[in-house]
C-alpha cells in the first residue's frame, strides 16, 4: 500500500516569500503530525491533527507558521515571510489511532526547505 507522501521533495525560496508544503497521509489514518528536523537533530514536534482539527499546535515556532487539514486527509503546512532559520527538513507522519504515543507513526520522506 501507499505510504505517506510529501510534496515537493525540495523547495528553495527567498527570504520573505511564502511557501506551502503538502502531506498526503496513509488512507484511513486519522492522526497526522508535522515535525521539523534540523541537521544532526531528531524530529521536533510542530502540530498534531485528529481528523480535521488541530488538536495541538503548541510546537509551531511563531505565527508565521500555520497548518490546515480541511477534509481530514491531506494537510498543508504554510509558512509566511520565510526566514533563513526556517531552513530544515519538514516531516509529516500519520498514525491509525488517536494515541500516537502508544502506536507506530509512519513518516513521509520529508520536504527539504532552503531559504536563501
Amino acid at each position, binding site marked *: 500500500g501507499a505510504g505517506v507522501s510529501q510534496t515537493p521533495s525540495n523547495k528553495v525560496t527567498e527570504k520573505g516569500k511564502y511557501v506551502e508544503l503538502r502531506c498526503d497521509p496513509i488512507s484511513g489514518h486519522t492522526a497526522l503530525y508535522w515535525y521539523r528536523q534540523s541537521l544532526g*537533530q531528531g524530529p521536533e*514536534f510542530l502540530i498534531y491533527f485528529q481528523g480535521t482539527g488541530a488538536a495541538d499546535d503548541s510546537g509551531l515556532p511563531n505565527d508565521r507558521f500555520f497548518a490546515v487539514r480541511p477534509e481530514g486527509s491531506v494537510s498543508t503546512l504554510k509558512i509566511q515571510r520565510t526566514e533563513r532559520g526556517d531552513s530544515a527538513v519538514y*516531516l509529516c507522519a500519520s498514525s491509525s489511532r488517536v494515541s500516537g504515543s502508544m502506536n507506530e507513526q509512519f*513518516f513521509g520522506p520529508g520536504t527539504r526547505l532552503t531559504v536563501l
Partner: protein
Amino acid sequence: QQPVQSPQAVILREGEDAVINCSSSKALYSVHWYRQKHGEAPVFLMILLKGGEQKGHDKISASFNEKKQQSSLYLTASQLSYSGTYFCGTPRGDYKLSFGAGTTVTVRA
C-alpha cells in the same frame, strides 16, 4: 524535554555488537525506536510499553526500565544494513513524541 541518547556515534565492523541508550528526566510509559538512513524518512523499529519489557526486530532488540526511566537498544551481530541514525522517542501526553538527538551507527565490512 527531549530524551538524552548516548553515544552520539558508534562505528562497528560487521558482526560486532553495540548498545544505544536513551534516558528521560520524566516518568515514561512507552519508548519508541526509529531508524533513519541518510536522506530518508525515519522508519519504525519497535515500541516498548511496559517496564522491563523486551522486544526484538530481527537481531535488534530493546529493553525498557520504567524505574530508571531509560531504554536500551541492542544491535547484535551487526549487518551493513544496520547503518543509520537511531532515534528514541518518548511520549509527551497521549499523542506527541519527543525525540532524542540520535545515535549515528556506521557498520563497516
